[in-house]
């Protein structure tokens, strides 16, 4: 099957298109002549950058008025498809809203979904998506069979975002159909954590801590080190689940994907679900007291030692230099 028409699920954060959105648009325009961005919200502020990255058309729902995006956007997408513009492929980001929208739409269209992918190709076997398993050691390529639209989601940083210098796209308003009782969930309040320093998924240095830190209070070692290196602090899921740090710190399969120049893992075992989020780092330093810890299998520099001894000395040494 040749891919002619691709939709990209587009998101904004703080008034600009997310990097993930621009990554997907960049890939989409390499595959299809016609690329449309689908925005749950107002397209106004981000339309130009969507166009610069390859979208020639933008569907926008306008403000969702507290509705959860998944149910609303799936219904809006379905109504556009029913009215005659049916894409061959819809690309979603592997995140909350992408996942929910894709799931709802798959039932409405009776189509399968392929999730957690890092690549997509138009081949003789059809549209093929690639997903890493076993911590990224094995790549599985899966072809869609049957009719489109093919629904496929991608892990962050699967593609590099590049501008094509495209013109401003045509913006078309799409109404969200009446959702009936399926639309009963409403956001009544929003809470955001304030963070300072570079963003975890953009920082050149990431220092992550795990259960090996022993207790929540010791996480300050990670924060101090990250600050000295002008990096961002991160975490394994074990200490997020334990409530030591917020979820936004989590690196891994269900957290952020990071590819910094240096990733420092302190007291982290290196579970497959953690590794998929940080294996793409240019350099990896691991500190773990267990020399059998899987993290050493991918570390450029591994220190078999106690984080409570190594980190304070490292912090002192760096302070002495600055």
């Amino acid at each position, binding site marked *: 099957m040749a891919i002619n028409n691709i939709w990209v699920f587009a998101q904004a954060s703080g008034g600009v298109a997310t990097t993930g959105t621009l990554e997907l648009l960049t890939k989409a325009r390499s595959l299809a002549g016609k690329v449309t961005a689908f925005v749950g919200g107002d397209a106004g502020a981000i339309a130009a950058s969507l166009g610069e990255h390859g979208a020639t058309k933008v569907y926008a729902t306008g403000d969702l008025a507290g509705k959860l995006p*998944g*149910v609303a956007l*799936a219904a809006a997408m379905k109504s556009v498809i029913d009215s005659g513009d049916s894409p061959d492929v819809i690309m979603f980001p592997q995140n*909350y809203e992408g*996942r929910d929208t894709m*799931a*709802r739409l*798959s*039932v*409405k269209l*009776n*189509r*399968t*979904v392929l*999730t*957690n992918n890092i690549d997509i190709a138009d081949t003789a*076997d059809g549209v093929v998506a690639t997903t*890493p*398993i*076993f911590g*990224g050691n*094995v790549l*599985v*390529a*899966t*072809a869609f*069979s*049957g009719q489109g639209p093919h629904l496929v989601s991608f892990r962050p940083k699967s593609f590099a975002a590049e501008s094509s210098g495209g013109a401003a796209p045509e913006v078309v308003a799409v109404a969200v159909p009446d959702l009936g*009782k*399926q639309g*009963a*969930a*409403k*956001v*009544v*309040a929003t*809470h*955001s*954590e304030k963070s300072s320093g570079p963003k975890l998924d953009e920082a050149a240095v990431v220092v992550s801590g795990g259960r090996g830190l022993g207790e929540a209070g010791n996480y300050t070692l990670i924060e101090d080190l990250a600050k000295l290196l002008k990096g961002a602090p991160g975490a394994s*899921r074990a200490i*997020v*689940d334990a409530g030591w740090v917020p*979820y*936004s710190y989590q690196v891994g*399969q*269900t957290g952020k994907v990071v590819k910094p*120049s*240096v990733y420092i893992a302190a007291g982290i075992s290196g579970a497959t679900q953690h590794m998929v989020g940080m294996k793409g780092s240019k*350099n990896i*330093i691991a500190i773990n007291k267990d020399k059998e810890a899987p993290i050493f*299998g991918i570390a450029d*520099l591994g*220190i*078999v030692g106690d984080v409570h*001894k*190594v980190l304070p*000395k*490292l912090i002192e*040494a760096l302070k002495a*230099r600055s």
Partner: protein
Amino acid sequence: MNIVVCVKQIPDPASPGALDASTNALKRDGKLILDESDAYGVEMALQLVASAGSGEVFVVSMAPNGETSGMRTALAMGAVKGLLVSDPALAGSDALTTAKVLAAAVTKLGGADLIIAGTESSDGYTGTVPEQIAECLGLPSVTFAKKVKVDGQVLKVDRQSETGYDEVECSLPAVISVTAGVVEPRYPSFKGIMDAKKKPLDVVTAGDLAVTPAGWAAAGQKIVSVTQAEARKAGTVIEDDGEAFGKIVAFLENLKLI
């Protein structure tokens, strides 16, 4: 308040995963255990029913073989009844078929005020099944719940977001997916384990639920290749002799990061 929890039974994650040579899918034969991701859902359901003061917790599961060990764990924790959909024809089902089957199973149990699933399973992690179940049943849903309260007929959820959380309210019946760590799953007591052996656990086929099985042939997707990714080579590993921090300093210096 009656709650149905979707519990997936998976191969023990402690043993390394393997692919079936003929289908290239994850092997799911042999003994299956309760997915830890769903232990949170079971615990949450038990706590919500306890604080509501009435109602019961049921569990539903789909598995190609007749394995029930994982469901027995949920019954031992305190669920009162289970329904397993087991059918060799369901082997290789995609997430959509799984959701259709589980939705039909929920209906077979007479529906529920609340349906709870995990945000993602440990072995499949598509993370779409809960929302697909909601759509199949025509219900509202709140995914990524990290705190859940039921206030009369209103569900109040703290929904995790990229930067914090949203407070979401929703009428019942509804579907929620809960994140790991929301509650501390209880260990089944000895008495719980003994009682679980006698609790009702029905096993039905896809046909019994009037769902067309869509295994390998009809899943709408087909694995075309499995390849080894380029391996990342391990570098130097040294034992800390009290001076190893210096090696890190030198490493960072070399990269001109300090």
